[in-house]
């Protein structure tokens, strides 16, 4: 078996205003690096458009309708200071959700060992009825619900190592006892949530913030002390990753000092968890990462590990 790569050119069609960090070039940089012969064995698949019923797994219909209604024929409309929509945004977002849903389906069906979804806009800041922080829909939360409610799993873990707290995932899955949501993130930083005391309605959330300037050693320590043991106790049947690469030392939007090797390390550790409890099933989805070179290198290294472990 192999690793699937789900993506779609429509994800470039969500164009953000000039100078915006979350830009189509991020995806182009990732595609370019994955063209290398080293990634030839990837099972490359086009992300379908998600059915609206998938969005309703975590969002009220009014949220979907409000985003749809906000889409202008021309130019941009700002939903908040960071989050903008234009004519191609809804299609891009539906491809993103379609990617994660299909990735879960493919992994659950045993067609592939694991999968990476190279999509944008990202999703982990989108709350039930609030698009924010570049995000429209909770992509990874939808993937978790798909695995639970469609495939009948009982335990799904989400690990979010994006440098910003996944407030959206936390909001969408706050009272979902079948999900263990674990997040490492810089604090203080946007969006201001993610304190260790925020533990979810059933103790199903673990927030492990890191101070500014924390490096990979601090990240590995907190993963080994708090998150990896909790994952082993939880015994997930599927491991989902919110893979933001903006904790890299070169990222312009934060101040953590991770290196590519730290992303390799965490990917290996999460694959170990998946091997022990989930038959190796991992679905990883792109979140942030705004230095194009660091993003491409980190993503490539992350996907390389998935391929090695999924082979």
């Amino acid at each position, binding site marked *: 078996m192999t690793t699937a790569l789900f993506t779609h050119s429509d994800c470039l069609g969500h164009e953000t205003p000039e100078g915006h960090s979350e830009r189509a070039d991020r995806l182009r940089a990732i595609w370019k690096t994955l063209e290398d012969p080293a990634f030839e064995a990837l099972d490359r698949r086009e992300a379908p458009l998600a059915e609206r019923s998938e969005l309703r797994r975590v969002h009220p219909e009014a949220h979907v309708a409000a985003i749809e209604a906000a889409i202008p024929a021309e130019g941009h409309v700002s939903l908040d200071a960071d989050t903008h929509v234009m004519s191609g945004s809804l299609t891009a977002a539906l491809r993103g959700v379609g990617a994660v849903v299909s990735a879960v389906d493919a992994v659950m069906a045993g067609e592939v060992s694991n999968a990476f979804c190279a999509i944008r806009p990202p999703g982990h*800041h989108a709350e039930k009825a609030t698009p924010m922080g570049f995000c429209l829909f909770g992509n990874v939360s939808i993937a978790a619900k798909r695995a639970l409610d469609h495939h009948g799993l009982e335990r799904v873990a989400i690990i979010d190592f994006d440098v910003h707290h996944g407030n959206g995932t936390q909001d969408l899955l706050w009272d979902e006892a079948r999900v263990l949501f674990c997040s490492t993130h810089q604090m203080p930083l*946007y969006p*201001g949530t993610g304190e260790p005391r925020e533990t979810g309605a059933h103790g199903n959330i673990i927030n492990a913030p890191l101070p500014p300037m924390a490096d990979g050693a601090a990240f590995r320590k907190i993963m080994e002390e708090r998150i990896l043991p909790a994952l082993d106790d939880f015994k997930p049947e599927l491991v989902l990753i919110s893979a933001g690469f903006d904790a890299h030392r070169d990222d312009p939007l*934060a101040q953590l000092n991770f290196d590519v090797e730290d992303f390799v390390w965490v990917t290996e550790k999460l694959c170990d968890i998946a091997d022990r409890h989930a038959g190796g099933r991992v679905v990883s989805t792109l979140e942030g990462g705004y230095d194009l070179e660091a993003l491409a290198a980190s993503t490539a290294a992350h996907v390389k590990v998935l391929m090695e472990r999924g082979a």
Partner: protein
Amino acid sequence: MNDTPVEEMSFEQAMAELEQVVQKLENGQVALEESIQLYERGDALRKRCEAKLQAAEEKVAAITTDAAGNPTGTKAFDAQ
């Protein structure tokens, strides 16, 4: 944001703005793209506050006392 350069701010000015910055960061009312600039501003303000505090502490330490412990004046800082 105060127009006075941070390095020219009084302790009170820097502290007041630092409190505003911390409040904004904590209540999540800051845009993702601005969050990092705000943190950096907060860091500069914190350093300014620390520098002013340290200078004040050094002045206090320089107060000279007589044998009974009553202050008699200050001594030149670089004389220590």
